[in-house]
């Protein structure tokens, strides 16, 4: 049923969008502000973006964030895909319910607790805190998102395709790489992008598990904002926003296209 778009709908939509996105819009707008004062519009300028290029601390933090995000999301994708396979493929194994619950627990676990627990673990293992510990921590909390996406894709997977490959002489191990993986690739890729964005903007868990010399971009933004808002922060936040939006958009496009293709395939079969 199609309802006509009326004034009431228009107002509620506008209010909803404003409530969600006005603060972000303000941040973006003021990143192009000529004035040094954050709340006074002094005309359009790109000077704060230019200044970023000379801010060693910011560039360094951005580089750390990027390295952590790429490494942790890649590891999380491998582990998350394997966990998703185990959950989707083996309907019964000892401790399955426990495993399923534990894989998805980080989705609802308070970040402070995850962060604290990880910190205690790293201290207990006498791991030097820094790049490695942040990366491991990010793998821990992003893996479940990959598992969810992969598991959902495998739920609608026709297993006779894999059986056909084995019937034609392909070993189970090789079947995974030439048949299963190509078919779930869109889900794996969107899982990676999701893990990447979550890692890129994480503050709480990073703060708990960081060490000297490993300051991520959100951590730097937060500490600088406490000292007074600098328009450079607006600019770098806008850039971060752009990267994350692009990643999420790409993940959505991948999923939608894969879904559409699957519908076409089922319609044809």
């Amino acid at each position, binding site marked *: 049923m199609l309802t006509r778009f009326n004034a009431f709908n228009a107002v509620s939509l506008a209010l909803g969008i404003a409530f969600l996105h006005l603060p972000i819009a303000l941040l973006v707008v003021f990143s192009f502000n000529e004035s040094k004062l954050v709340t006074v519009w002094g005309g359009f300028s790109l000077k704060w973006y230019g200044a970023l290029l000379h801010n060693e601390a910011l560039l360094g933090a951005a580089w750390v964030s990027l390295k952590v995000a790429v490494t942790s999301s890649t590891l999380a994708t491998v582990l998350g895909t394997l966990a998703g396979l185990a959950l989707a493929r083996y309907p019964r194994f000892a401790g399955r319910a426990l495993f399923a619950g534990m894989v998805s627990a980080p989705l609802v676990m308070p970040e402070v607790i995850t962060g604290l627990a990880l910190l205690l673990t790293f201290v207990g293992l006498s791991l030097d805190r820094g790049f490695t510990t942040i990366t491991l921590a990010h793998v821990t909390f992003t893996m479940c998102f990959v598992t969810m996406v992969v598991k959902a894709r495998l739920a609608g997977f026709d297993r*006779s395709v894999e059986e*056909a*490959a084995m019937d034609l002489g392909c070993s189970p191990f090789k079947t995974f790489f030439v*048949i299963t993986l190509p*078919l779930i690739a869109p889900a794996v890729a969107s899982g990676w992008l999701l893990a990447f964005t979550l890692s890129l903007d994480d503050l709480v868990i990073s703060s708990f598990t960081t060490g000297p010399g490993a300051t991520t971009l959100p951590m730097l933004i937060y500490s600088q904002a406490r000292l007074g808002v600098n328009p450079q922060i607006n600019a770098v936040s806008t850039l971060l926003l752009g990267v994350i939006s692009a990643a999420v958009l790409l993940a959505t496009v991948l999923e939608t296209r894969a879904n559409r293709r699957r519908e*076409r395939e089922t319609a044809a079969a």
Partner: protein
Amino acid sequence: MSTAASLTAARKPAWTPWADPAARPYVRLQNIVKRYGAHAAIDELSLDIFQGEFFALLGPSGCGKSTLLRMLAGFTEPTSGRILLDGEDVAAVPPYRRPVNMMFQSYALFPHMTVEDNIAFGLKQDGVARAEIRARVDEVVQMVQLGPFVKRKPHQLSGGQCQRVALARSLVKRPKLLLLDEPLGALDKKLREQTQFELMDIRAKLGMTFVIVTHDQAEAMTMASRIAVMDHGRIVQVGTPAELYEYPETRYVAGFLGDVNLLEGRVVDNADGLVAVESPHGGRLAVRSHGEVLPGSQAWVAVRPEKLSLSTASPATDVANSVSGRVWDIGYLGNLSVYHVRLDSGQTLVSVQTNQTRLIERPIGWDDRVYLSWDPHAAVLLTH
């Protein structure tokens, strides 16, 4: 139904290795049991299939026929029993090491590969040289007439074309044994009938052994050299289509292959293979039987609808079997007319008559009193 029966009758059964005690079976299933918990999906099943056969496993869904096929392919391991393929026990051999290929009911084409790559997949796994792969793929593509579609992906094909790709893919490795799981189930009637004959031609041309699973008795009768009728994980009867149709051993087989009229009664006399049955539906009936039947035992006289002759005039007194009733329903199928006749006992018999003249006015109409008669040789005596 009657078309399928006449086809099998026309085939001369000159080649019958199953009747030769010296012939070595190609596939031997020995005392196969498959249990899921307490439920036995396959229950002490033994079966021999000979090289070059087109063997059909026929039965309703859940009878275990697909489980049996998956065991031959290697996807399911029997709980106990032996599977011998060309003399070698393959029960523990995984599917990717068996010289057996399967055509899946869902076709199971690889959606991310072209038709060509789908067909070539099996040969690539065996490390066959590129030039030979080309040649052999081309050969099967010709055989199943897929020439113009080789560069397409499965989702760009019709159901019938997908079916051909699946067939080509399973044929290209020239397996010793080809398994077909309801291969024609998704096709429409015309295409299905046409493909049945193509499958028979392909089997004959390549000289392979085919085992097909189907729930469609007409399909099994058209294509198969022999049929195993299954029920509840067991084989009820094995035989050629004509044997099963003309000499069913149980009411289940009689009713599964084609339509049958069953008249229940009690054996009163057995002299020289001519058994007399006293039935509440038609008095004293005579039927030829070579089996052991004891007077006094319960029995059913089974007669196929096309073997009943129908007339409005009372038959001569020397006719062995005759019952009378009123015409209850008439179904006109063009080539045939189906008459449902309600006997005085209340049971309904079905009689099929070929329409040998053009019907403008029916010689027999609703509510007419009619007589159904048949020869003692036309009926079968069933005891269970």
